[in-house]
Every structure is written in structure tokens, then in C-alpha cells.
């Protein structure tokens, strides 16, 4: 047992402690808050590096490196509930990624949130989030995992609603919380079922009885539910539901774009790099369960098929929506949803290593893009509408350069950028998927759209001429449906008077130049950009170090793998796809730059119906509004009716009956029992009073009585006694 595995708990506890200390400090103590948060993250990062190196230096002979530690938490029934943590390659990689990205984003936030009066609260939440996320990563116990997972959900809620005085932010926070709750219900049910089946929630144990180890898996795979499905499949699907909620996969993706109402560092940290990756991480963690199947071979179990299809559909679905968005952060949000779909696709078709590799590379370049967009928003005085930006290349060179790197990485520009290698690996695995070729084509189409929308965004934001200073009124009657607020204003010190705010903004956009952000914001961008490039080389087909690291095999450099089994051809075709996307984007948006902010989009003029569909996100929100929300509202009304008239009526009836009985009792008491006693008492008292007069103590009265009695006696003796 290495020292670091024994003390792995320090990594999440440090930020948690920092958060607790910040929470009890006063609002003006900004320096202390930032120092504590960043200091704890530095320590956590160093410890993570230690953990990583411990895994790295471990000899690979006996398979995957895995060390467990923990303690007995509480006892129920005859057994102890243990809280365990695990150090294995998966944990180590995630630890380093989460703590490093968090650290950079913390530093960035110091600059971004510098003028916010709730600076300390922000860092308190950020630290809480980081601690909980690191807890998710090290958990060897589904319960501990779930606890941390829920804290992560809570901080997500708190941070999306950080500017809670904005109604849109409060609504977005609520939406995020409720939507993820739906998924978490599945996770909870899966957890309970798993416990019922295996009697343990530990993933791994030293004696091989953990719920992800062979004996438990084999038992679960042979048990059947009433519908004939293997129990392991059912549990896997339930747990995947949790991942769907957290990672914004298809039916439950609606919260993630709205979550962009939060401060931009939050979007970068929680809703791009780490928290949403928790769902992918969950699938990777319980992958043995999902891959377990009694009859069919690995990679094609029902659960993995579901994962694959959900991921592939999400990837394309979200990528097409991103094409028609105008909010810089919303474009990135849909991009995130799409990339998370890729990760799920990778997990489904290629196993842990494929999905996790994309998760790691994506975390870096998406954090880079979000922080870059934060820098843009900051530099443009809280402007978020890409149609009103333009020409920022000249004003923000560092931001532009790093953003371009992030954009190329996300698009999957060949050879030099990490996104290319990770996405290529996913497509490669999808190509070889035995069940269906469709996910591969979906992924390829998604890649085309990804390159396209990123080119569109960069062309609109950084190239051309400045389009600020247009009247905000013309924006509101643009393509977007009424519910999407044009350019939400993110200034926390926003003026209460709306018209004053508008006039100031107009004046401001005319008089202020966009400016480059301070070094505290650009340095994290540069560091992230470096990693967005370099990380790709740890997972190329020629040197699949990442894959081998996760599987505990020695990594070998084999250049010939590049050419074998169609790898080269696939790389070429994906390169062609990327170039097509980039070229199309540049042809449509880069060559003919828009001159003013309110002219219609190129696609809008060409295909107004399609564009309208995409700009309104396939009307998913509206569909939910019309079905789920309406159903809920109806159910709520129904329950209200039941409560008010049926159950309420029963309660009132019971109350009335009781009241009537009470009246009856009171009447009986007052007029029967009490009256009887009262009368009895009065009679007795009167009698007593009458008798007591004979004992008045007047001797003369006594004498008088004696005299009268004597006379009576004499009369009686003389006349009365005779018969």
C-alpha cells in the first residue's frame, strides 16, 4: 500500500475544508478566500500528481494497478458500511485532469470575478464543487460516489443561480437541478437494486467480493428480472440514466445550455470540463457492469448499445443546434452536449479508454474555449451575442490565438491537435462496431457540423469589423423565439433602471474599445492551449499510451499501427470531413462577413425553415413545455384538487365530527353533570348553613330553646301523653 493511496482522501477534503473556512468568513475577505481556494487546489493538484506518478511507476506485471483504502462508516444490520477510495489509472487520470483544470479556472476566476461583490461566496462554492468532484473521482463505493455526485449537483445549482437576482439565472438553476434529479432517481434506484443483488456497494474489494468484480457480475448476469432481462442489464440502464442526466444526453440535455446563465468560469469548470464529464466517468467506472452479459460478447450488451445510440444521436443532434445559435456561450454549450455524446459513443463502442481519452482532451480544450469566451465577454463589456462582436482579433490577440487553438482542437484539425486524435479513436472504434454502422456515420456527420459551427463562431467573433453600437431593439425581433433572451446582461452590478442600462450600454459600446483581458486570465488560457495541443499525442494509434495506461499494459511505440487495418484511411477521411466543415464554414461566414449585427444569417436566408428549427433547438423546450411540464402542472392541479376537496374534505369532516362531539360533551358536562352536582352542593350548603345557625354560640338562644322545649314538654306530659 503506497502512502498516497492511503491518504487519497486528502485530495477532496482539502478543497472541502477550504470551502468550509471561506463559508464562515466575511464577505470582504476576498484575498483570504482566493488564497484558500487556490492554495487548497494547488495542494490537491500536487497530491494528484503524486497519485498519478505512483500509478505510473508501478510495475505492470500483475495487471491493473489498484489500491484500496477506507474506513468503516456506519453499521446497519450485521454489516458495516464502508467508505472506500480507490487509486487506479482511471482515478489517477481524472484526478490530475480535474484538479489541474480546476486550478486554472480558479486562477482565471480571480480576474473574471474581480468586480463581483460576492467574490467570497463564489470561491466557497467553487471549492465545494472541486472537493465534491474529486470525491466522485476517488470513490470506491457507489454510496460515496452518489453523495459526492449530489453535492456536485447542488453546487451546480448554486453556481448557475449565482446571480440569482436575474430571473433567467434562477430559472436555469432550477431547471438544471430538476432535470438532473430525474437522472439521479435512476442512479439511486440502480444503486439500491445493486445493493439488493450483491449486498455491497463497494466497486472493488481486496478479496474480490466487490460489486464490479467477477463473482458479483456473474451472479447478476444470470439472474433475470420478470421481463426476462438480466439484472445486470437493468441495473446498468438505471445507472446510465443518472449519467444521461448529469452529462446532458439526449432526452435530458435541456438544462445544460440554460446553465450558461452562470458566471463563465462556472460554465467552463462545471458545465464543460468536469461535472458533465462525471456522467461519462460514471459509465467508465461501472463499465464492467455494463459490459457484463451472459450470452453476447463484450461491447455489444444491451446497455452498451443504448449508450452508443444515445451518444451518437446526441452528438449529431446538439451539433446541428449549435449551428444556429447566436449566444457565444450557448454555441459552446451545445458543442459540449455534442462532445459528451461522442464520449458516450466512445464508451459504447470502444470501451473505457476511448471514451475517457476524449473526456480528458475535451476537458482541456473546452475549458480553454469557455475561458476564452469569458475573456471575450469580459473584454466586450458583458456582450454575449456573436452577431454584435466581430473584429476582435485585433483587440484581443492572446485570446484570439488561444481560442483558435481550442477551436481547431474541438474541430479535430488533423495531426497537431488533441481533438483529432481522440475523436479519431472514437470514429475508429465506431467503424468496427459489429451491431450497426449507423453510429459511425452519425459521428462523422457530427464531426462535420462541429468544424462548421466552430468556424462560424470564430469568423463571427474574431474576424471582420466591429458590429457593436447597434441598437439593442433590433436584436430582440431577430430569429430567436421569444423565450430566448437576447444577450443576457451579466454584470452583477447591473443598474436597476432598465432604460438607463440600455442607454449606458449604447454609450459604452460606442466609447469603449474591446480590450484584452489581464494576465491572470490570459495565462490560464495559454497553459490550457498548450495542453489542448500536446495531450493528443498520448493517445495516437502509433503510441496508444493512454489506452495501455488505463488497462495496465506496457505502452509500445509502433509506427506501423498507423497504417494497418484501415487506420490511415479513416484518419484521411476524418481529415477530409474536418476540412470540409472548416471550408464550408469559412466559405459561408468568413468570406462574406456580416456588416451589421441585425442582418439575417446566411443559412437563414438560404433555408429559413431549417434555420428556424435549429435556432429554436428543435423546439425540445417547447415540446417539454407542452407535454411534461403541462402534465406536471395538470397533475399538480389534480393533486391540489384532491388535497383541497377530497382529503381536505375528509379532514374537515372529521374535524367537524370531533367538534360536534365536543359540543355534545360540553353540553352534557355543563347542563347535566355540572348542574346536578351544583344543585346537590347548594342544597348541602344551604342545609349546613341552616343547621349551623343552631350553633351560633349565643347562650341566650340556647336558653330560650331550653325554655320553649320545657314548656312543650310540660304540655306534652300533661295532655299529650294520655292515650
Amino acid at each position: 500500500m503506497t502512502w498516497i493511496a492511503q491518504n487519497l482522501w486528502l485530495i477532496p477534503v482539502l478543497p472541502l475544508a477550504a470551502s468550509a473556512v471561506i463559508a464562515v468568513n466575511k464577505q470582504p475577505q476576498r484575498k483570504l478566500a482566493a488564497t484558500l481556494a487556490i492554495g487548497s487546489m494547488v495542494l490537491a493538484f500536487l497530491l494528484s500528481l503524486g497519485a498519478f506518478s505512483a500509478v505510473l511507476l508501478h510495475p505492470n506485471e500483475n495487471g491493473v494497478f489498484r489500491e484500496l483504502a477506507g474506513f468503516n462508516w456506519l453499521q446497519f444490520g450485521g454489516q458495516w458500511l464502508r467508505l472506500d477510495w480507490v487509486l487506479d489509472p482511471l482515478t489517477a487520470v481524472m484526478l490530475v485532469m480535474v484538479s489541474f483544470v480546476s486550478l486554472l479556472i480558479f486562477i482565471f476566476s480571480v480576474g473574471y470575478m474581480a468586480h463581483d461583490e460576492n467574490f467570497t461566496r463564489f470561491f466557497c462554492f467553487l471549492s465545494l464543487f472541486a472537493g465534491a468532484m474529486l470525491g466522485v473521482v476517488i470513490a470506491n463505493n457507489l454510496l460515496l460516489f452518489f453523495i459526492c455526485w449530489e453535492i456536485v449537483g447542488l453546487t451546480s445549482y448554486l453556481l448557475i443561480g449565482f446571480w440569482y437576482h436575474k430571473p433567467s439565472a434562477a430559472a436555469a438553476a432550477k431547471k438544471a437541478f430538476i432535470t438532473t434529479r430525474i437522472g439521479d432517481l435512476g442512479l439511486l434506484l440502480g444503486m439500491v437494486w445493486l445493493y439488493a443483488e450483491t449486498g455491497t456497494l463497494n466497486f472493488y474489494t481486496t478479496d474480490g467480493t466487490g460489486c464490479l468484480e467477477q463473482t458479483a457480475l456473474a451472479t447478476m448476469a444470470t439472474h433475470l428480472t420478470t421481463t426476462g432481462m438480466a439484472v445486470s442489464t437493468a441495473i446498468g440502464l438505471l445507472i446510465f440514466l443518472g449519467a444521461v442526466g448529469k452529462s446532458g444526453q439526449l432526452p435530458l440535455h435541456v438544462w445544460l445550455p440554460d446553465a450558461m446563465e452562470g458566471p463563465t468560469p462556472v460554465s467552463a469548470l462545471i458545465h464543460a470540463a468536469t461535472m458533465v464529464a462525471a456522467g461519462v466517468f460514471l459509465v467508465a467506472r461501472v463499465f464492467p457492469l455494463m459490459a457484463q452479459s451472459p450470452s453476447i460478447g463484450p461491447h455489444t450488451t444491451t446497455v452498451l448499445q443504448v449508450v452508443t445510440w444515445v451518444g451518437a444521436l446526441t452528438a449529431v443532434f446538439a451539433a446541428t443546434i449549435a449551428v444556429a445559435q447566436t449566444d457565444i456561450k450557448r454555441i459552446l454549450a451545445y458543442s459540449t452536449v455534442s462532445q459528451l455524446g461522442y464520449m458516450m459513443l466512445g464508451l459504447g463502442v470502444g470501451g473505457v479508454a476511448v471514451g475517457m481519452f476524449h473526456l480528458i482532451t475535451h476537458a482541456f480544450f473546452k475549458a480553454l474555449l469557455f475561458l476564452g469566451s469569458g475573456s471575450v465577454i469580459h473584454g466586450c463589456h458583458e456582450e454575449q451575442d456573436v452577431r454584435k462582436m466581430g473584429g476582435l482579433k485585433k483587440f484581443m490577440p492572446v485570446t484570439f490565438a488561444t481560442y483558435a487553438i481550442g477551436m481547431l482542437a474541438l474541430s479535430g484539425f488533423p495531426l497537431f491537435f488533441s481533438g483529432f486524435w481522440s475523436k479519431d479513436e472514437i470514429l475508429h472504434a465506431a467503424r468496427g462496431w459489429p451491431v450497426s454502422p449507423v453510429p459511425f456515420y452519425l459521428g462523422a456527420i457530427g464531426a462535420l457540423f462541429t468544424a462548421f459551427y466552430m468556424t462560424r463562431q470564430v469568423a463571427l467573433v474574431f474576424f471582420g469589423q466591429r458590429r457593436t453600437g447597434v441598437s439593442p431593439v433590433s436584436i430582440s425581433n431577430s430569429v430567436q423565439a421569444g423565450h430566448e433572451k437576447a444577450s443576457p446582461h451579466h454584470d452583477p452590478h447591473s443598474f436597476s433602471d432598465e432604460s438607463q442600462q440600455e442607454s449606458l450600454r449604447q454609450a459604452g459600446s460606442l466609447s469603449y474599445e474591446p480590450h484584452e483581458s489581464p494576465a491572470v486570465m490570459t495565462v490560464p488560457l495559454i497553459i490550457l492551449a498548450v495542453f489542448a495541443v500536446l495531450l493528443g499525442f498520448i493517445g495516437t494509434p502509433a503510441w496508444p499510451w493512454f489506452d495501455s495506461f488505463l488497462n495496465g499494459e506496457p505502452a509500445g511505440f509502433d509506427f506501423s499501427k498507423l497504417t494497418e487495418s484501415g487506420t490511415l484511411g479513416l484518419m484521411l477521411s476524418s481529415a477530409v470531413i474536418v476540412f470540409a466543415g472548416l471550408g464550408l464554414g469559412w466559405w459561408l461566414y468568413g468570406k462574406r462577413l456580416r456588416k451589421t449585427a441585425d442582418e439575417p444569417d446566411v443559412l437563414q436566408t438560404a433555408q429559413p425553415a431549417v434555420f428556424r428549427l435549429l435556432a429554436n433547438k428543435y423546439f425540445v423546450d417547447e415540446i417539454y413545455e407542452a407535454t411534461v411540464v403541462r402534465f406536471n402542472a395538470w397533475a399538480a392541479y389534480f393533486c391540489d384538487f384532491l388535497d383541497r376537496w377530497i382529503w381536505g374534505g375528509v379532514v374537515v369532516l372529521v374535524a367537524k365530527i370531533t367538534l360536534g362531539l365536543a359540543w355534545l360533551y360540553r353540553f352534557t358536562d355543563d347542563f347535566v353533570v355540572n348542574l346536578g352536582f351544583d344543585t346537590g352542593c347548594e342544597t348541602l350548603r344551604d342545609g349546613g348553613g341552616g343547621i349551623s345557625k343552631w350553633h351560633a354560640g349565643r347562650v341566650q338562644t340556647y336558653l330560650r330553646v331550653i325554655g320553649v322545649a320545657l314548656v312543650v314538654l310540660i304540655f306534652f306530659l300533661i295532655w299529650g301523653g294520655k292515650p
Partner: protein
Amino acid sequence: MTPLQGCLLVSALLFAIGLAGAVTRRNAILALVGIELMLNSANLNFIAFWRYGPHPEALTGMMVVIFSVAIAAAEAAVGLALIIAIYRHYKTANLDEIRSLKG
């Protein structure tokens, strides 16, 4: 009317006056006077029945009356002493206000 009847009538009258005095007088001393009157009416009866009875030569009635007068004297002394003690205690000799034997 025989002399005996006259004596008994006087005696009865005297008794009635004494009783009325003892019952109606507020003052304890006057009540005591009433009691003395009743006692003396009884003495008068003794004398009358002895004088006009079958053996006037035996001095039995006289003897009883002398005893009775002596006892009455002692009784009056005790009664007066009691009244003085009560008066000292209650600061009054009004029988209506003296209702209890405990202080």
C-alpha cells in the same frame, strides 16, 4: 284561692320574670340577676309547699331553702367572677358578642 295557690302564682310569676330577664338581657350581669330570680322563685315554692304541706312542724323546707341560698350565693360569686374574667378578655359584657369559648 288558698294561700298555697297564691304563693305558687307569685312563684310562677317570679320564675317567668327571671326567665324573661335571663333570655332577653344583653348584659351578662342582668342575665345573672334573672337566673337568681328564677332560683329564688324555686326557693319560694319550697317554702310554700313546706308551710301548707301535711307536716309543717318538721323544718325540712326551711333547711333545703337555707342550703339553696348558700349555694346560690356561691354560684353568684362564681358567676360574677366568670363575668369579670370574660369582660377582661373581650372588653365587653354583651352576651351577643361572646359567641365562642376559645379565645
